[in-house]
């Protein structure tokens, strides 16, 4: 009866439909990303050499913040309308249901952020040879951030005001991703090899893929019961 692959695909499909019906939730983090990056030259001056130097770090930090802002929605509506409890008691491993939801979150947030990043790279005079590294590192990094962020979202879903708390508990966990992601782009900007940084990011993603849904599933059981 409990047909294993079907609930994964069904949840994936349902959440994709929902993501497209709530386009605002998808677009807002992108707009935030764009506006926040535009603030940087206004704040510190538009000197090309300076912008060129800080562009990798700034783009990465802003992508991180945009991801954080979108996390609160991950389980919130399911919690509010009761479908989260149904997901919990379904005869199906919660690990995969969580994975489906995180995948949709990444498709709706991480992937568009990655696609928008080159444009912002141009605005911040990112050197031409860093664009591939920027996209690759963000592609892997945002996926890892969605996974780790899911744990924070699951922990705080039972709280009315989870938004700020998620950022508080998740941001320190993002440190390794930020370090390797931003450094990969920096290395590429000065013409160095950046495969090592990408490999470490990939390893981080693999680890998060195995552990984060597990922790998020446990956290959801605690939150729904609270």
């Amino acid at each position, binding site marked *: 009866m409990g*047909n294993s692959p079907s609930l994964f695909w069904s949840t994936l499909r349902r959440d994709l439909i929902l993501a497209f019906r709530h386009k605002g939730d998808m677009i807002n983090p992108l707009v935030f990303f764009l506006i926040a990056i535009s603030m940087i030259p206004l704040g510190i001056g538009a000197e090309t050499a300076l912008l060129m130097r800080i562009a990798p770090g700034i783009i990465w930090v802003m992508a991180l913040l945009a991801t954080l802002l979108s996390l609160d929605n991950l389980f919130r509506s399911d919690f509010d309308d009761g479908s989260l409890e149904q997901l919990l008691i379904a005869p199906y491993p919660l690990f995969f249901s969580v994975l489906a939801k995180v995948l949709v979150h990444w498709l709706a947030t991480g992937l568009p952020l990655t696609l928008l990043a080159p444009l912002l790279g141009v605005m911040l005079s990112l050197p031409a040879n860093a664009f591939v590294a920027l996209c690759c590192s963000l592609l892997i990094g945002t996926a890892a951030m969605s996974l780790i962020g899911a744990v924070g979202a699951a922990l705080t879903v039972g709280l009315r005001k989870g938004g700020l708390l998620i950022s508080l508990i998740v941001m320190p966990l993002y440190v390794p991703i930020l370090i390797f992601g931003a450094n990969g782009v920096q290395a590429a900007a000065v013409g160095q090899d950046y495969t090592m940084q990408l490999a470490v990011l990939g390893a981080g993603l693999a680890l998060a893929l195995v552990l984060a849904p597990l922790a998020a599933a446990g956290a959801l059981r605690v939150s729904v019961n609270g």
Partner: protein
Amino acid sequence: MWNIILSQLSALVELRDFACERDERILFSSLNAIFYAGQVVQILGANGSGKTTLLRVLAGVSPDYQGEILWQGQALATCAWEYTNASLYLGHLPGIKKSLTPLENLRWYAAIQGGVGDEVLLQALAEVKLAGYEDTLCYQLSAGQLRRVALARLVFSTAKLWILDEPFTALDKAGAMLLEARLAGHAAAGGLVLVTSHQDINVPDLLQLNLQDFALAHAKLHTAGYQETSAHG
């Protein structure tokens, strides 16, 4: 004599020395009960007596209980998979996404249950008198209609055990009668219904279990209990 033997064979859910506490307060304890196939059992009790808690525990949402739950004579731990497959839970919240249509909502539930075709779902919507609404977004439906979408799950459910928390909420008279007929039909087909409701349920042979009968037995936290319970856990 035969009746007793037969009914014993079809004991579905048994609670042994069952107790729940919430926020350091014992809601009920020493609850021993056997529920048989073919029964509709209304769980009674004042607000805060633990009706919802009991149903959430039985549904598997909450693991906070003491005592034993047996499913068809077996401890729950040994047959958790069969149990979740054989039970259906409808909580306070209908579990319906408002930005999806009723049909899209039911498709997701059909996937939980494992492969039910669209024609069955459409028929289920027709049964709860929502024919013609299958492509309307649930935003535009009333509270009662939302409840009917959730109740449409009962039509195509293959679960033996139905755990329904206040399913009559927001339903109109016709809807309530429809639901009552469905509950009676499920019991007649050898199923078991555990239901809470603030209104009278008009079902033949309705059984009632009042949680308040088990409330005051041990009102205070008993200290000695700690070592015993942790030894079990």
